């Protein structure tokens, strides 16, 4: 058994074990440094995993030496690998950039606990992805959610608290729905191992419980993934969370729920009667509605973070719309967009965090002429915004291209969908450009002293800015050389469609 076999276990165990140790690191800065180091180790592990996956492996790990399906199995294929990259990459980048912003928003003595929660969130999210056990997914989901509630609750504004409470209620209902679904499947199949489940589901005569279970799992995960119209928790939670937490969660939080959702719908229920068709027919209108409605809301939203949060809801719509096409290219587009959107939204929220270091108020109007004092941040926001719109040369364009290609394969019906994607891109132009114009507006001359005051304070070059520029550069890099995510996405879609579990 070579070292590579242990990688999936390391991915979960390291942040999980590091979390309680972090609590002990009281001196200022230590907790942050240790957490960041752990996150980078995690990132290295997921890169190593991705390398193995690209070489054609599938990594399996039997926890405690118990073989599947009796024991709990960890299992990593291309689909897991790309999501692992998203999670650990988002964690590493947001953590290394987090220092100043967190110092500003979280009191010193609470920081070790805060960072411990952050590590638990990472552990929970990667756990959901590596495990091949349906119940284990639930446990990790709750670990990540509980840690996530704590992270969001760190926000300084009192409005954070009702937002977290709402998220907690809805998140728990979602997880419980998932649990009910898994219980029903267990009743009918007698197994919790996903692979085993996929095989046993086929032979079952009484299909109704499985269908009901599929519905429960779907609704539960859709709540977690903020699929329109189950997204109500997301905008407030993202808006009021500490800025760096928003970066992290916006990049990977909902995507992991989407991951589990697709795993279940495709790998397990794929060959199960008419299920997939019903799933697609149910999902597609919701995804399309989500794209349009959430984009429109973003258009008229005055607060920068909330606007981006609504844009995230729309983007989840893109991801799920690709999946609802049920085709190879559709799922490729959808997986690729998970990756690209993580990059794009991560960059945008990093820029927001950077703006927040100089502007206490993040309503769009109050960022007027920000480009004067923060030229680099503003420019980074422009590039990331272009990626969100899907301008060629950026990562966002590649996924949009793939998505429209996939829709065109469906024939004439596809034109409505193409139209919706196109219209929502135009709306994205609208809401992004509103911000860009404000950033670059010429300051009005009636307050000359005030304006001079702002322009005197130059943009500080810190880790946050460097991370932001790096992420933006990645947006362009993966817009021109999308080989890595594209290959992983293509492999993922093969895996999901052919049940090579």
């Amino acid at each position, binding site marked *: 058994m070579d070292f590579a076999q242990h990688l999936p276990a390391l991915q979960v165990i390291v942040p999980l074990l590091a979390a309680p140790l972090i609590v002990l690191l009281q001196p200022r800065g230590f907790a942050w440094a240790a957490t960041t180091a752990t996150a980078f180790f995690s990132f290295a592990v997921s890169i190593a995993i991705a390398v193995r996956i690209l070489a054609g492996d599938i990594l399996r790990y039997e926890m405690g030496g118990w073989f599947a399906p009796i024991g709990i199995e960890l299992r990593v294929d291309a689909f897991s690998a790309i999501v692992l990259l998203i999670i650990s990459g988002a964690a590493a980048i947001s953590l290394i950039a987090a220092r100043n912003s967190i110092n500003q928003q979280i009191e010193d003595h609470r920081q070790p606990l805060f960072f411990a929660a952050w590590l638990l969130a990472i552990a929970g999210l990667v756990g959901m992805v590596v495990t091949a056990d349906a119940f284990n997914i639930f446990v990790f989901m709750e670990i990540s959610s509980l840690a996530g509630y704590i992270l969001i609750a760190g926000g300084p504004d009192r409005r954070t608290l009702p937002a977290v409470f709402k998220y*907690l209620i809805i998140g728990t209902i979602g997880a419980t729905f998932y649990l009910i679904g898994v*219980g029903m499947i267990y009743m009918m199949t007698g197994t919790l191992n996903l692979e085993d489940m996929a095989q046993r589901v086929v032979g079952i005569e009484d299909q109704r419980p499985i269908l009901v279970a599929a519905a429960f799992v779907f609704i539960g995960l859709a709540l977690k993934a903020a699929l329109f119209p189950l997204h109500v928790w997301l905008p407030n939670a993202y808006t009021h969370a500490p800025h760096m937490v928003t970066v992290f969660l916006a990049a990977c939080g909902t995507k992991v729920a989407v991951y589990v959702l697709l795993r279940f719908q495709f790998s397990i229920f794929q060959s199960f009667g008419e299920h997939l068709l019903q799933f697609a027919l149910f999902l597609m209108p919701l995804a399309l509605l989500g794209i349009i409605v959430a984009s429109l809301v973003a258009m008229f939203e005055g607060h920068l973070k909330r606007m981006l949060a609504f844009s995230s809801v729309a983007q989840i719509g893109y991801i799920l719309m690709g999946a609802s096409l049920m085709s190879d290219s559709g799922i490729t587009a959808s997986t690729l967009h998970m990756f690209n959107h993580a990059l794009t939204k991560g960059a945008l929220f990093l820029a927001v965090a950077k703006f927040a270091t100089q502007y206490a108020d993040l309503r769009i109007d109050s960022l007027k002429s920000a480009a004067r004092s923060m030229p680099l941040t503003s420019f980074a926001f422009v590039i990331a915004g272009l990626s969100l719109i899907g301008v060629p040369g950026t990562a966002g364009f590649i996924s949009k291209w793939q998505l429209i290609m996939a829709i065109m394969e469906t024939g004439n019906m596809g034109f409505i969908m193409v139209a919706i994607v196109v219209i929502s891109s135009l709306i994205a132009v609208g809401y992004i450009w509103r911000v860009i114009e404000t950033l670059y507006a010429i300051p009005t001359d009636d307050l000359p002293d005030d304006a001079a005051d702002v322009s005197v304070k130059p943009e500080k070059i810190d880790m946050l800015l460097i991370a932001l520029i790096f992420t933006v550069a990645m947006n362009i890099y993966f817009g021109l050389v999308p080989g890595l995510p594209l290959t992983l996405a293509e492999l993922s879609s093969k895996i999901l469609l052919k049940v090579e579990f």
Partner: protein
Amino acid sequence: MKLFEFLGYYNYWVFAILLMIGFYAVIAKANLIKKLIGLSIFQSAVFLMYISMDKVEGGTAPIIKPGVVDQLYSNPLPQVLILTAIVVGVSTLALGLAIVVRIKERYGTIEENEILDAD
């Protein structure tokens, strides 16, 4: 026969009714504590579903004793799972209550509509 079958699943009916009671409380009650109580009922209902599914008629507790072979016993797995789920449920409840305490500190109320009015 039909009726018997219908009632024979009474444990699942209990599960479903409890689930709905909990769900109703979460949605309809404005008081945050009551919402959390509802959430707990909602989760407990699911625990009951798991526990009742593992019951094998005539089975005993799944404990290995020397000398006993071919003993009919209940499925231990769901019990183990639900043990974990209860821990999760308790943690969620604890965190929820902690947040409510903080809300009370910052807003001076735990009624949802009053909180919404306050902002």
